[in-house]
């Protein structure tokens, strides 16, 4: 190499070749060395995420006492017990109600709301409403759960007082204290908290639709509902599908709000699978039975999880 006027050139031609071959010479060694990148993550995932879930099935075939540590193998007894446990069925019904109502409000309701917001002419206001509706989603469920616990109280709460003000005092009741209304009151809180989150996601999806499509539709005389149905809805279908799956998965893992607001009561009427698992596994110390309930949640979330992966794969083709 002669000394060139441009230093950069000299470095490139002078150094690149020998180093490149050195890199290649490492060959299989560098492939093995590459494991170090994923090692920590895989130790953590396999140890604390995968293993406990396998172990959960083992635990569910045993009856053990957390204090004495006595363990006896009982086979599928805990699963047979599930079938005859009326609270498990109440819980499954409640989780399903949770899923259905959340899909209505947090997917379809949020979709319409997002379309309305994105239809506003000023960006300032679009941003304002998206942010306002999102606020409850940033706050922890424990806080919002406690807040609504108070809102539903007959003595100090907002709801009964508001009903009285508008002349509907007949409707007022101890919302969380009655078996017929407790789970619906909890689900209503959850809609209040969660709809802004999905509205924001739909708004992002709607922003990606080219404006020209709407302009063309307006030229053709399509009204707002026609545009919503024929343009916005089909072009955000991927997002809608994904949100349906995510919402259903979430509905079967519900725990926090029920725990904070009613603890599953009154008389187990608002139990969901998560709280019943906690009740059996940690309050009654019946680990085996708790693990069997966990298996039910596992099967349900695994199915919805596969659906989600399938959908995500379709959405992000490059993956």
């Amino acid at each position: 190499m002669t000394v060139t006027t441009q230093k950069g050139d000299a470095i490139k031609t002078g150094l690149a070749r020998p180093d490149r071959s050195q890199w290649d010479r490492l060959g299989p060694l560098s492939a093995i060395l590459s494991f170090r990148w994923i090692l920590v993550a895989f130790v953590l995932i396999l140890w604390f995420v995968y293993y406990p879930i396998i172990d959960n099935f083992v635990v569910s075939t045993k009856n053990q006492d957390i204090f004495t540590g006595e363990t006896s193998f009982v086979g599928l007894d805990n699963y047979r017990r599930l079938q005859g446990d009326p609270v498990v069925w109440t819980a499954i019904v409640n989780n399903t109600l949770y899923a259905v109502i959340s899909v209505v409000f947090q997917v379809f309701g949020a979709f319409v709301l997002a379309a309305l917001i994105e239809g506003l002419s000023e960006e300032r206001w679009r941003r304002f409403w998206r942010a306002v509706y999102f606020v409850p989603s940033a706050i922890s469920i424990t806080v919002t759960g406690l807040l609504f616990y108070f809102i539903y109280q007959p003595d100090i709460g907002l709801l009964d007082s508001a009903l009285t003000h508008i002349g509907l005092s007949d409707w007022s009741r101890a919302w969380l204290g009655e078996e017929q209304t407790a789970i619906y009151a909890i689900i209503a809180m959850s809609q209040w908290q969660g709809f802004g989150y999905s509205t924001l996601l739909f708004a992002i999806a709607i922003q990606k639709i080219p404006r020209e499509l709407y302009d063309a539709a307006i030229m053709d005389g399509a009204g707002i509902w026609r545009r919503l149905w024929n343009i916005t809805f089909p072009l955000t279908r991927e997002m809608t599908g994904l949100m349906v799956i995510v919402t259903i998965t979430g509905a079967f893992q519900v725990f926090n709000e029920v725990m904070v607001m009613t603890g599953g009561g009154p008389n187990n009427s608002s139990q969901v699978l998560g709280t019943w698992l906690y009740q059996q596994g940690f309050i009654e110390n019946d680990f085996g039975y708790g693990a069997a309930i966990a298996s039910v949640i596992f099967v349900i979330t695994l199915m919805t999880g596969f659906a989600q992966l399938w959908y995500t794969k379709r959405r992000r083709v490059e993956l």
Partner: protein
Amino acid sequence: MNGARHAPEAERTDFLAVLAKVCLVTFLTSLGIVVLYPLLWMALNGFKTNAEIFGNPFALPSGFGVANYISAWNQGIRNYIATSVIVTVGSAICTVLISAWTAYGLTRSKLPGKPFFVGIVLGGLMLSPTVAVIPLVRMMQDLGLYNTYWALIILYTAFRIPFTTFLIRAYMLGLPRDLDEAAIMDGASERQIFWKVTLPLCKPILVSCVILHVLFAWNEYLFAMIFTSGADLQTLPVGLTSIMAKHGTNYAVVFAAMTLSALPIVITFFAAQRFFIRGLAEGIGK
């Protein structure tokens, strides 16, 4: 194209448009009140006396003295915030760093059998904490980590790695490879490329991942409740329920405590809204 437009027709369309606009704004405003009023009520109740709380719930407090807030702060909120900060920051750093390493290994390194390892990481997305919680109690007790910060930091990290890796990996796949190639040409090692080239390029997604993790860890309840029992080790969500149990009759203090726990995350949201929204957009699937 539309020729002569009849004046009355145009007026009618204008009228309908205005009416629609009024309806829309009324609807959005009412919904906004339904969303924000309960939160305002919570903060206002923190200023009331107990007697006032049992009065008209729509009334304003008689004064804005912060006695209840100070009392809530001293009755535990201070400690709970400290624990929440330790656990949130600790697990956020661990999660994002480890996930970035993993994503790098799964996209850029010479790791053989990448699809297999990617499958294991993505599979972790489908496993929920609820299902693992019973075996984890025994495991944490055996490890001597039960009732320590480490239990929460490790679990938050392990359970969020799949999701965070998934996000960073998707971002890395979209990065051009020219810079890597150039760095290899210049004799950089994989380690140097990761720290000097790839990681700085991933900054936007890393910020989003940190924010999503903070949102998760700050608000997490199940693990926090089960793996910590002492008052010194409780995070905010669990601590709040203890305050509720201990001072359940002193509603005003409970309201002040709730407001104090909600405040940091709401402020973070408004301060970092842009990153928040991008993070959520990237992270659809929670």
